[in-house]
C-alpha cells in the first residue's frame, strides 16, 4: 500500500536520444493516491500499456523517476517492487491446482503456510473459485482462467498497487459486466490501489473513481467521470468520452461571443485574452445542443439522419464541412431537411490549440 508518484517520467523504445515526438510515453508527472480506483483510458497505441509496464518494472523508463511513498524505486526489478499485475490474456500455471496458482506469488515470497492458506481461501471465496481450488488449473473456461489471473494479482495483501492491463478483453460481454462489478466490490473490500487499463470508456467510467485519459503518449486529463464529461481539458477527451462524442467546431471567439459562419452564439463567460495565432474551437456535447424547427436567428444545419437510441434521439447534422450531433426532442421532424440549432451556453467550452481555455466570469 503506497502512494505512487511519477516524476518527469518518459519512455522511448528507440532509446533516450530519439526525438521526443517519437516517445511512446511523453514526460508525465502525476500522483496515484493510496486506495484509489484508477482507469487509464485511451485508444490503442496511446502508451497506456507502456506506462503500466513502467510502473510494474517490466520496462525501465528512459527518463524520470517512480516513487512509492516517496522512495525512489526506479532501478528495482519487478520482483522487488511489490506490485501486482494482471495481463490481457490469462496466464495459468497449468501443472498446478487452482489453489496452488493463487498461492504461487505468496509461496515465492516465503510467506508462512498458514498465512498462505488463509489468503488463498479468502481470495477463492471473493472470486467464487472455492469449488475449483483443489482442481488442476487445466480444462477451465476463459473467464475462470482470467479469474485465477485476477486472483494471483489480488492475493498479496501488501502490494503497492494492482495493475490491470485490459484484463476483460477475452471475456464474454455478460461475464465482463459481472467481473467488473466484482472487481469494484473487491476494491472496496481489500482497500488496494488499482490501476485499470482499457480502451473502453464504459469500462473505465464504471470501474474508476478517477479516470486518466491518455492520447498519443501524453496524459491529457485526469479526473472523475463527471469532470471528464462536463469539462474536458482537451478536445480529444471531449471527443473520446461520451457517445456520440463532443462536437468540436472551428469558431472565432471574441469576448462573450463565438462566431460560426458569421453567426453569433452567446457564451456564458468572457474570453478576452486568447493566444494569437492559435487554432480556436468551441466544444459542446450533443446533449446540450437541440435541433428545433428552423427560425431566423438560429444557426441552420442540414439534417443527415436521426439515430434513435431508445431513451434519446440524436440528429446527425452538417454545418458546411463540419459534422455535428444534437439532441432531437420528442416529436421533432423536419420538413425540408434543415433545422435550427439551439445551444446551451453554460456547456459551451472554448479550446485554443486543442486545450481548454477558462473564461472570465
Amino acid at each position, binding site marked *: 500500500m503506497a502512494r505512487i508518484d511519477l516524476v518527469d517520467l518518459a519512455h522511448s523504445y528507440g532509446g533516450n536520444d530519439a526525438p521526443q515526438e517519437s516517445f511512446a510515453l511523453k514526460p508525465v508527472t502525476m500522483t496515484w493516491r493510496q486506495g484509489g480506483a484508477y482507469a487509464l483510458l485511451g485508444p490503442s497505441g496511446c502508451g497506456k500499456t507502456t506506462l503500466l509496464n513502467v510502473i510494474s518494472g517490466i520496462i525501465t523508463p528512459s527518463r524520470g523517476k517512480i516513487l512509492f511513498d516517496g522512495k525512489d524505486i526506479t532501478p528495482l526489478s519487478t520482483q522487488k517492487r511489490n506490485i501486482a499485475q494482471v495481463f490481457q490474456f490469462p*496466464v495459468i500455471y497449468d501443472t498446478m491446482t487452482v489453489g496452488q496458482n493463487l498461492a504461487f506469488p505468496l509461496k515465492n515470497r516465503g510467506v508462512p503456510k498458514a498465512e498462505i492458506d488463509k489468503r488463498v481461501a479468502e481470495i477463492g471465496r471473493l472470486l467464487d473459485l472455492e469449488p475449483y481450488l483443489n*482442481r488442476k488449473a487445466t*480444462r477451465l473456461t476463459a473467464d475462470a482462467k482470467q479469474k485465477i489471473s485476477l486472483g*494471483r494479482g489480488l492475493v498479496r495483501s501488501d502490494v503497492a498497487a494492482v495493475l490491470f492491463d485490459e484484463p476483460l478483453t477475452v471475456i464474454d460481454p455478460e461475464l465482463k459486466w459481472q467481473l467488473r462489478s466484482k472487481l469494484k466490490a473487491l476494491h472496496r473490500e481489500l482497500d488496494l490501489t488499482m490501476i485499470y487499463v482499457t480502451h473502453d470508456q464504459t469500462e473505465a467510467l464504471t470501474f474508476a473513481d478517477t479516470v486518466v485519459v491518455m492520447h498519443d503518449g501524453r496524459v491529457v486529463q485526469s479526473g472523475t467521470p463527471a469532470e471528464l464529461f462536463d469539462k474536458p481539458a482537451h478536445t480529444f477527451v471531449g471527443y473520446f468520452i461520451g457517445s456520440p462524442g463532443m462536437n468540436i467546431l472551428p469558431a472565432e471567439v471574441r469576448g462573450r461571443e463565438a462566431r460560426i459562419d458569421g453567426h453569433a452564439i452567446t457564451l456564458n463567460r468572457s474570453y478576452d485574452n486568447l493566444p494569437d495565432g492559435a487554432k480556436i474551437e468551441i466544444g459542446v456535447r450533443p446533449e446540450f445542443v437541440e435541433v428545433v424547427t428552423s427560425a431566423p436567428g438560429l444557426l441552420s444545419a442540414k439534417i443527415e439522419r436521426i439515430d434513435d437510441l431508445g431513451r434519446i434521439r440524436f440528429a446527425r447534422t452538417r454545418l458546411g464541412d463540419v459534422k455535428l450531433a444534437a439532441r432531437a426532442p420528442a416529436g421533432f421532424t423536419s420538413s425540408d431537411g434543415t433545422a435550427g440549432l439551439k445551444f446551451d451556453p453554460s456547456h459551451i467550452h472554448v479550446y485554443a490549440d486543442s486545450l481548454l481555455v477558462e473564461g472570465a466570469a
Partner: protein
Amino acid sequence: MDKTVNQKAWFLVLPVFLVVAFSAVLPLMTVVNYSMQDTFGNNQFFWNGVGWFKELLDPSTDLGGRFLASLGRNLFFSLVILAIEVPLGIVVALSMPRHGWTVAACLVILALPLLIPWNVVGTIWQIFGRPDIGLLGYTLNAMGIDYNYVSNAVDAWVTVIAMDVWHWTSLVALLCYAGLKSIPEAYYQAAQIDGASRWAVFKAIQLPKMNRVLLIAVLLRFMDSFMIYTEPFVVTGGGPGNSTTFVSIELVKIALGQFDLGKAAALSLVYNLIILIVCWIFYTVMTNAGVERKAQAEEEPAAERKPAGVLQPAMALKAKEGVA
C-alpha cells in the same frame, strides 16, 4: 451421399499394391520363410519350425546369449544417452539467446553435427580418439590418463557415448528451443510479477510447455539409438571383444559374417517386433495427450453454462492429481 459404383477404380489402387508388395511384403515374407528353415548352402533348405526363435530367447545357447547380451547393451546405451542428451539439450536450449543475430549463429552451429553423415562422424571420432595421432586420445594420454578405446571396454563405451552425445544433443536442443520460443512473453512477465525464481519459472512454465517436444525428442532419440549401427561399427567395430556390440552389429555379423540366414532372420524379426512395440507405446502416449487437449476444448462451452454440475465428477477424478 450417392456413391457411384465403378469397379474400375480398383485399377487406381493397383500400383500401390504392387509397390508395397515388392518393397515390403515379399521381402518380409522371405525373412519369415528363412526364419523357419536352416540351410547349409547350395540352396538346400531344411524345415526348422520355431527352433531359431526358441534358441534366440534361451540365454543358455550361443545365439540366445549373444542376442540377449547385445540387447542388454543396446538398452543400457539408449538409457545412458537419453539421460545425458535430454537434460543437456534442455540446458543448451535455455541458455540460447532469444533475439538478435546470435540466434542465427547458434542455430547454425547446433545444426552442424546433424548434417554430418554417420560414417563420417564415426571416422572423425575414431581418429580423434586415437592415442597416437588423435587430438583427444593423445591429450588424455599426455595428461597421464591411460585412454585406449581399442583395448579398454570402458574407454570404448565412453567414446561411443561421447560421440552420440556430440552428434545428437543438438537435435534435442533445437526441439526444446522451438518449444521455448512458443511460450508467450506474458508468461515470463507474469512470473516476474509473481516473484518467481529462475528455478520456479523453469518448473512452472518452461518445463510444462516443453513436454510435448520433449516427448518427441525422447521418441526420436530412443528409436535412433536403439538401431544404432554405423558410428560404433566404424569406431570400435563392436569391440574390444563384444563389449560395444549392439543388436544391429550382432545381426550383421550373423547374417553376413557367418551367413546363418535362419538365425539372422529370426533375430531381425524379434528386433523388428521390439521396435514396433516401443513405437506403439509412444504413439499411444502421444495421441492420448492430444485427445486430452481436444476434450478440454470441447468441454469449455458446456462448463461455461453449468459449471457446478459438469465439474463435480471431474473434480472427483482429479483429486489424486491435485495432491500430487
